[in-house]
């Protein structure tokens, strides 16, 4: 009964002019926020605190956690597979993200030229982003880049013999996943398109009157005016890329293979937690990832002072 009681009291208080004058709407506000608040507490804040605590324990999921102090951190320092997973993830982030953004920007510029059927092309290019993180596309990718996949069949027709199985060769497996990542350039592209629309047409008109070429216009007008948008996309995509999981999980069949060449950090974290029953270590890894992403985001913000141009 208490909930109803409180709410009716609240309602009548407001009618009478109320007792609690300063924040009369607090309770109603809280009531409206309750679903979100419960979600935030239950599936974000409390698990985060729990995971921080678990990072200092040995927790097998089956027995209660045992406090082990800094043992997990010491183990992480000496764990060569973890180091390898960091290398793989860094390559993915620092090769994949720039390529993806360049691709997104170029196509956004092309689409911004006012071609016929713009919305059709926009949807077509955006589609991979909607599907890109999905299991289905990753499976498709594995089929396409397999030893007998579409890519090699086309290659065979063009006269390239003895092509490798791209996803099952340690030299090329990571490259195929990066390619999959680049292909999902749709969401930064849409943001770039919106940004391009904000640039006043008169700048270009003035520039062409002065005889500036299209290329010069792109580098002297488009890019500088777009830097806040580029910055936004860089921050967002770097954070996303660090957390990539699905593609590597599916393409490698959950193993991170061949020979750990697609062992992403998150994939290793998952294996530690759920297949090796080492949830304490996995929690410690999750916090290291948070710190790494935090550092790179901070660096991004710091460096942005030197290249991002706000038009005000």
């Amino acid at each position: 009964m208490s909930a109803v009681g409180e709410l009716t009291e609240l309602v009548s208080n407001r009618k009478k002019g109320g007792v609690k004058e300063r924040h009369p709407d607090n309770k109603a506000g809280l009531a409206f926020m309750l679903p979100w608040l419960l979600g935030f507490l239950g599936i974000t804040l409390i698990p985060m605190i729990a995971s921080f605590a678990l990072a200092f324990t040995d927790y097998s999921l089956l027995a209660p956690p045992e406090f082990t102090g800094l043992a997990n951190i010491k183990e992480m320092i000496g764990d060569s597979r973890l180091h390898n997973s960091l290398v793989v993830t860094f390559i993915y982030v620092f090769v994949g993200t720039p390529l993806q953004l360049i691709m997104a920007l170029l196509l956004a510029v092309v689409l911004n030229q006012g071609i016929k059927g713009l919305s059709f092309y926009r949807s077509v290019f955006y589609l991979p982003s909607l599907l890109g993180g999905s299991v289905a596309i990753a499976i498709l990718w594995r089929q396409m880049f397999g030893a007998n996949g579409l890519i090699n069949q086309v290659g065979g027709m063009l006269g390239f013999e003895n092509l490798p199985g791209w996803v099952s060769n340690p030299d090329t497996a990571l490259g195929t996943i990066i390619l999959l990542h680049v292909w999902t350039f749709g969401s930064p592209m849409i943001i770039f398109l919106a940004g391009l629309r904000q640039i006043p047409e008169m700048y270009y008109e003035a520039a062409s009157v002065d005889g500036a070429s299209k290329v010069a216009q792109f580098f002297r007008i488009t890019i500088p005016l777009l830097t806040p948008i580029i910055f936004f996309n860089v921050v967002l995509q770097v954070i996303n890329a660090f957390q990539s999981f699905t593609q590597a999980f599916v393409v490698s069949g959950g193993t991170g293979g061949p020979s750990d060449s697609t062992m992403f950090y998150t994939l290793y974290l998952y294996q530690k937690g759920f297949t090796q029953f080492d949830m304490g270590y996995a929690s410690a890894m999750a916090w290291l990832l948070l710190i790494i992403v935090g550092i790179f985001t901070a660096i991004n913000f710091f460096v942005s002072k030197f290249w991002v141009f706000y038009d005000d």
Partner: protein
Amino acid sequence: MFTRRKALALGLAAPGLAGLAACGPNTAGGSGGSGEEGAGSLRLAWWGNPTRDENTKNVAEAYKEVEPEVTISLEPGEWSGYWDKLATQTAGGDFPDIVQMDEKYLAEYAERGALLDLAEAGLDTADFAPGSVEVGELPDVGLAAINAGLNAFAFLINPVVFEEAGVEIPDDSTWTWEELLDTAVTITEATGKGTYGMTQMGMIQGLFQVYVRQSGQDQYKDGAAGFDAATATAWFELAKKIQDSGAGPGASVSVEDSSRSMDQSLFATGKVAMTVAWSNQVVAHDVLVPEGVVVLRPPSMTGSAADVQLWYKASMYWAVSSQTANPDDAVAFVDYLVNSPDAGKILSVERGVPGNLTVREAIVPDLDEADTKAVDYLESIEEELGHAPEITPQGGGQFEDMLTRATEEMLFGELTPAEAGQRLLDDLASALG
């Protein structure tokens, strides 16, 4: 007057009240309802394939006639996601009452107190073949799980490919590892491009175990690695020879093949003459290969079937959660699964050949050709079996991954066989802690 505000207040309050009520002490349902007559509901989880899912559903249905009071809710799964799900459920205190368990993870769960001692709980095992109950026993736990069937490691032959190549199927009572390689090389050379004599077997844990046992060692001894670096190195040299001699495919084709589903594999599609599997997988392979498969013993080092050192492995187990609300009902159902000929007729040999001899006797006459192949194979090797291996210790569940990783790095030329052997030992030592 019924204002908008009041309506809103009621709308908010109603679900809240319902939520509060659900938490009350007089709630019906909840976790399993420990009724007085033992009327309960049991959750049964297993991994499998469509045939097994069907069998298991039928057996749960049939149990209603034996024990109408008990309802069994079914939680089928796939091998790949099964252990992740089980680990998560365990963490959440939501472990199913009865689970299908694998030898790899038995110690992992049992030694951390997640499984009931079935012997103490009164499970009848009197009819089981000698040695088949012990495979579920752990020193500190007791009978942690009862086998749902037995199997053994085997070579599978696709006779069509042998015929194409004009090669005789070898005599498995005398063949050696060299003969295996020679036969495979001949087949690869006699057939077209893309067809091979054998699959790359370097990453197959079961065959690795056969190989180290033939060297007088085993995968585990006293809870640690039971093999030395020299034996592991010899194994990786064999894997390398399969690749270099052309007996099997190259590294990237092999890696891809090992991650394909059974029906897409090189063997099932007639691109490979010989592969390996556990005997309970004979049936599934037999369906996929047009003329059916031939089952052979693995080769030996001495050319004598007496030295193959096979063993009967529990193909899988039934285990009961130590946290179950209805231990009596759960054990009674497991008892039905393993001891009742009626259940045996429904389950057949899909989970391996029943360890219970009475059940086995009851079902064997009705088996079809493929099932019979598996049973015949098990019976034919009975005289040659080596000692039973140690149960995989805690942390050993990852062994196959370690073996796969070491083999792959070796096949791609990143490691020498000796380095791969050392790597395997190091990885295993650190996993066993």
